């Protein structure tokens, strides 16, 4: 009697123990990315990445698309922010990083030697729209200098002569301008200020920075893209910058490029990368791009956020390398880019950039 009850009690216990052991060993094997390429090009294993929050929404689409084609694969992406993502990549904690900026020269030196020369692929291009709330003005046009003066707090009312010169046909009210900027550190701010400092350096003297400068007079801070959109929606006379896909019903200003005014469309945004040169000192398989903000070609919109995926050129084993290559090839493919455009409203990269990216990704190898 006693023995039976003991057995009864022990059995589930042993079963639970066995299950725990099985699960922990499973978990452990996941961490070390046991990748086995089975026949037919089907991949399996776990791929870990971390970084940019801008890519988070697109990553959801890429993960779903890639995992449904390769049922044995798990892709994890931790949207901790570009800075933390790059830090984790440099310390070898993740196999790839998502970052709104390519690696700085200092960061390049910290790349572990086992990783080789890093491969940086621009995978996510998103136009940054200048959104505004001004009833009665449907098609606002702004030249770079006017835009810079508005955000620098030098132009304070909507009927300012500089704005009137850009909009000869519009009835501009005397409403005060409330420029809304991001109060958190953000790649969107970095790209927007980079644009201002390149095209209107005399009106925008604060450089290209992630944190909005405190020395700018006036202006309102808001947390995140949604915070900026909410502030502009609620405030008459407010103007801000945000991902074009998040603009909703708000008006988006046309920005003067060359002699014409351009709207932030996906096509116009993707084209600016074809007009740009590699970043200084880069090239080959490192596709870091110095975005040509000063372009004067028509049909090109130069205020874009370019977000990269940063990869190693050599991985410790060929299985991991195959997994990374498989995933990245899907991300830059027209399927992957279209999925991201549908999910996140990004601009699919052009075919010219895609072929460069494919070559770069193919160069990745295992040791």
């Amino acid at each position: 009697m006693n023995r039976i009850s003991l057995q009864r009690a022990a059995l589930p216990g042993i079963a639970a123990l066995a299950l725990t052991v099985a699960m922990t060993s499973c978990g452990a094997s996941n961490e070390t990315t046991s990748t086995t390429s089975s026949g037919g090009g089907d991949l399996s294993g776990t791929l870990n990445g971390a970084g940019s929050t801008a890519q988070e929404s697109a990553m959801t689409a890429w993960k779903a698309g890639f995992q449904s084609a390769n049922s044995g694969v798990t892709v994890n992406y931790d949207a901790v922010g570009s800075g933390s993502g790059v830090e984790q990549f440099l310390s070898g904690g993740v196999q790839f990083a998502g970052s709104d900026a390519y690696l700085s020269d200092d960061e390049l030196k910290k790349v572990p030697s086992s990783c080789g020369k890093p491969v940086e692929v621009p995978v996510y291009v998103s136009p940054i729209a200048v959104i505004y709330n001004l009833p009665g003005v449907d098609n606002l046009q702004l030249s770079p200098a006017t835009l810079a003066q508005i955000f620098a707090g030098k132009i304070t009312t909507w009927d300012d002569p500089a704005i009137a010169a850009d909009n000869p046909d519009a009835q501009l009210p005397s409403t005060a301008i409330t420029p809304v900027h991001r109060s958190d550190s953000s790649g969107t701010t970095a790209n927007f200020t980079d644009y201002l400092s390149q095209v209107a350096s005399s009106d925008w003297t604060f450089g290209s920075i992630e944190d909005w400068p405190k020395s700018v007079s006036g202006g309102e801070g808001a947390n995140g893209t949604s915070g900026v959109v909410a502030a502009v929606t609620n405030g008459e006379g407010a103007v801000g910058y945000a991902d074009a896909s998040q603009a909703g019903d708000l008006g988006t200003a046309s920005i003067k490029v060359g002699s014409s005014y351009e709207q932030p469309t996906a096509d116009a945004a993707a084209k600016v990368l074809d007009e740009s040169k590699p970043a200084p000192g880069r090239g080959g398989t490192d596709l870091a791009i110095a975005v040509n903000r000063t372009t004067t070609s028509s049909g090109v919109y130069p205020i874009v956020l370019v977000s990269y995926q940063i990869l190693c050129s050599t991985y410790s084993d060929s299985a991991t390398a195959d997994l990374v290559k498989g995933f990245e090839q899907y991300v830059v493919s027209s399927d992957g880019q279209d999925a991201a455009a549908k999910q996140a409203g990004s601009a699919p990269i052009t075919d010219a950039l895609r072929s460069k990216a494919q070559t770069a990704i193919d160069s990745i190898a295992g040791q």
Partner: protein
Amino acid sequence: MASSAAERVARPPGRTGDRVFKGIATSAGVLILLVLAGVALFLTYEGFPAFTAAPGEIPGAGGITGYIWPLVFGTLLSSFLALVVAAPLAIGVALFISHYCPRRLVGPLGYLIDLLAAIPSVVYGLWGIFYLAPHLVPSYTWLAGHLGFLPFFSGPASVTGRTILTASLVLSVMVLPIVTALCREIFLQTPRLHEEAALALGATRWEMIRMTVFPYARSGMVSAVMLGLGRALGETMAVAMTLSATGVITVDLISSTNPSTIAANIALKFPDSTGIQVNALVASGLVLFAITFAVNFAARAIVGRRREFSGAN
């Protein structure tokens, strides 16, 4: 030998249980101290590099002092404003529940107040940014127009309403339940005999409250308000979402440019910070830790000093 044997015999039953309980209680007490010391140690260790770094490395101008001081100012200003609004309101509500309200309403009313404390701060943030802020814009425009000569309302009034005054009003709603609940408990503890004695002397109900309830509850009210202050100082999400933080120092309460608070600033800047920027954020956290510590210390001191004069003895 013999005496110890006698002792052992004389030992009352259940002594082991006593000892175990004493051990558990002591270690729980010590654990609190260890956790506190651990947090302080971590903040000091991680924040120290920011204090010794060259001023140019710290974000913004003016080194670590220039970085933290506007945040301290914003934290104290928003918490102070929140308490100015919340404290009288909370004491009024507590007094109503304990002494004026019909008996059958006491339960539901207390429950509703407690429910305010159960709402997550993110929800308060959403309420602040989407509802309260836009609805306050007309008041701010009026204040800027009619009371603009005061430095607090010099404007220009924010068109989105996301000012430090809005953030403080959100904070005041958030600290209301904690201050109300504590005050209510304290008011209810006023000795019945004191109250009846005052009424027997011909006091009206308000005079009775002034003569018996307030003197008895004074120290408790101070500590309740201080606890509310603690919550307001550390509140993060609601402020980060509601406030248009630009990091300036100003007493203008209704414009678009406002000082940020320490907790909100950490939440906003941490995700994209690296290296010395993280140290600077931790250093600001250390300052917040010191401020809350000082506030609680001051509250204790006031409570201790007032106890002798209260009606309790």
